[in-house]
Every structure is written in structure tokens, then in C-alpha cells.
């Protein structure tokens, strides 16, 4: 009996250690200790690759993959296109961002959110269409701004084209994310747009 218990205990330990190891692998990647992309520093007369690579996230989560694996025919509800700056040894609010000053929530081209159908955010109806997003960070809260100046560059947002502003709390996380990350997460009713970088995370819930 004791021997069996010992074996089982050991197996749990093994699982938990294994788990820790896998977790720390993920964290290291996120931290950039092992960079997940090989930078392309070669000469490119067409278009050099960006230091802050672009990325895309859909809601429903992984919509394009669902479409090919499950034959989903219902159109997606939302999509975000953003560029992913990385810390590169810097700290977010010591070196990169300032409180109360607009932050482009990305890099290069302005971060774009595309609602394929009307959405509701904090009780406000947002019409289907393309918008850009930026943020005014404060210590305890972020103001997420939806703006009409699409197809623009992220710097110097034209506030006269703001559509709506949403205040959301910002929380601290236990591990630091090397690359700025945005993605949609499924909620019981609707989705939340998760925005995370370094030790900070903010979530903007929305419904469709």
C-alpha cells in the first residue's frame, strides 16, 4: 500500500515538474530568451521584414482554422490586425510608454479592428466596419479609443475622428510577455479582446 502511494506520489511530482518545465519553456519564448523567429536581416529590394512583425486574431477564436477544419459558413464577427513590438530588454513604463499619452497599441500601421457585424461595447452600439484602436494608459486603467482614421500610421492619432472611448482596468501578471500580444477570448456572452505586454494585461469585453 505504502509503495503504491509512493509511486503515485512520484507520478504526480513528475507530472507537476514536467508541467513546470513546459510552462517555463513557453514563458522563455515569450520572454524572448529563445527568440521564436529567426530575424531576416538580409537585403531585400522589395520590402524588408519588420522588426515588429504583424499578426492577426479573429473572433470566433481561430476562425480561419475552424473554417477549413469544420466548414464553418457563418461569417466571423471580428478581426484585429496589429504589429507586435517587443521589449528587447526595456521596461514598458520606464522606457517605452508614458502615462496619459496616446499609445498606438502596436507598431507601424495603426492597429485595426474590423467588426463584421454590429457590436456592443460597454452598452454602446458600434456599427459593423473597420476602425483603428489606440490606448491612453494610466496606472490603474487604460482608455481604449475607437477611431475612424483607418489605413493610417499608428503615430499621432487624429482625436477629432474618435468614435468611442472605453475605460478598462489594467492588471499585473506573474510573468512578463516579451512581445505585445492581442487576441480574442471567448466569453459566455461574446468575447473579450485581451491586450497584454510585459507584466500588464487589460481586457475589453464586447458582445455581438
Amino acid at each position: 500500500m505504502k509503495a503504491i502511494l509512493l509511486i503515485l506520489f512520484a507520478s504526480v511530482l513528475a507530472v507537476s515538474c514536467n508541467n513546470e518545465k513546459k510552462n517555463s519553456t513557453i514563458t522563455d519564448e515569450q520572454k524572448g530568451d529563445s527568440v521564436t523567429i529567426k530575424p531576416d536581416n538580409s537585403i531585400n529590394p522589395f520590402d524588408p521584414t519588420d522588426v515588429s512583425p504583424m499578426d492577426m486574431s479573429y473572433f470566433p477564436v481561430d476562425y480561419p482554422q475552424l473554417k477549413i477544419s469544420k466548414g464553418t459558413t457563418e461569417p466571423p464577427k471580428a478581426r484585429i490586425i496589429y504589429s507586435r513590438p517587443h521589449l528587447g530588454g526595456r521596461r514598458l513604463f520606464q522606457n517605452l510608454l508614458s502615462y496619459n499619452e496616446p499609445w498606438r497599441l502596436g507598431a507601424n500601421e495603426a492597429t485595426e479592428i474590423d467588426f463584421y457585424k454590429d457590436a456592443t461595447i460597454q452598452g454602446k452600439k458600434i456599427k459593423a466596419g473597420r476602425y483603428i484602436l489606440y490606448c491612453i494608459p494610466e496606472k490603474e486603467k487604460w482608455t481604449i479609443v475607437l477611431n475612424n482614421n483607418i489605413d493610417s500610421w499608428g503615430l499621432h492619432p487624429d482625436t477629432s475622428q474618435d468614435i468611442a472611448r472605453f475605460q478598462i482596468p489594467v492588471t499585473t501578471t506573474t510573468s512578463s510577455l516579451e512581445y505585445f500580444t492581442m487576441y480574442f477570448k471567448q466569453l459566455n456572452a461574446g468575447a473579450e479582446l485581451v491586450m497584454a505586454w510585459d507584466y500588464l494585461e487589460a481586457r475589453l469585453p464586447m458582445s455581438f
Partner: protein
Amino acid sequence: MKKIIVLLSVFQLIFFSLLAQNSNIPPVDKSPMDMAYYPANYPVLKIQDKLTETLAARVVYSRPQKAGRTIFGSLVKYGEVWRLGANEATEIEFFKNVKIGGKKINKGRYTLYAIANENSWTIIVNKETDTWGSFKYDKAKDVVRTEVSVQKINMSIESLSMLFEKATSGYSLIIGWDNVKVALPITF
């Protein structure tokens, strides 16, 4: 004893679900996404108030790297539909109606595919958007197929590259990778 086993399996379940939760955070892609506009550099020109032409087109694509491999005729097989990118299907959006290969195309979003051959490529404009690669490519949803000739270039481009260039009538989508370049003419 049974209780202990049940308890332990519950622990294991919790550990594995924690693991799964952590991997929800999207890592950086090996083939990073990029976009190109026509007019070229439209977003920068827009905030600098230097635009001389209205917005015409945008391509959003992912950029696989050569990484020492032979690309054309090997990684990209001749005569087969190729996703012309990586990950999410390559998207082209026309903000005005255009003509490609003599066919009128209404403004809107489309997916681009290609069939590469040694001396020419077939460029495919397809209606199925928001999809992944060319795994579920459906010929019935083609809007146009057009042949473009391959130009060999005297260097090797590491990352798949796309950009728009002004042409005598309209503009061209330039696609380059490895030692190959093609131009897709787009007219108004």
C-alpha cells in the same frame, strides 16, 4: 485507495488544464504577417498629409522564409495551387473596382492563390475570404485566373515579399521570393 487515484487524476487534470491555459497566448509567428498598400506607403503619407492618390488596394500576407531551402519546383511544387503566403490566407482588398486579366472585379476582399511554374505563374483571385492557406481551395469560387511571366532575378530574397508599384495604366502587385519575381497588372 480508489479515492486516492481519483484525487490524483483530478490533480493531473488540473495541471494539464493549467498548461493548456498558458498556451492560449499566441506566440510570435515563424512567418510574420505584413501588409502593403497602393498607393505605396499610404498610411505614412496619410498622416503626413502627402497623399496624391486615393486608396486603391491592400494586401495582407504572411512571409515564409527560404531558410536555405529550394523554393520553386521543390517547397512550392510546380503546377499545384500554392497559398502564396503562410497561415491565414493571403488577402487582397480593392477599394475601387479594378480589372485583372481583362475581367472586371468589384471592390471588396478576396483571397489570392498562385500556381507556380518555371516560366509563368497563374494568379488566382478567389471569393472565399477569412480562410487558412489553400487547404480548402475551391475552384468554383474563383473570380479570375490570369497568367503572369516569371522574371529571374540576380539574388536570393529570403522572405516572401509583396508590394504595389505604379504602372503605366493602373498599378502592379509585385511578388518576389528566392530568385524569382512576378508582376500582376491591375488596371482601373
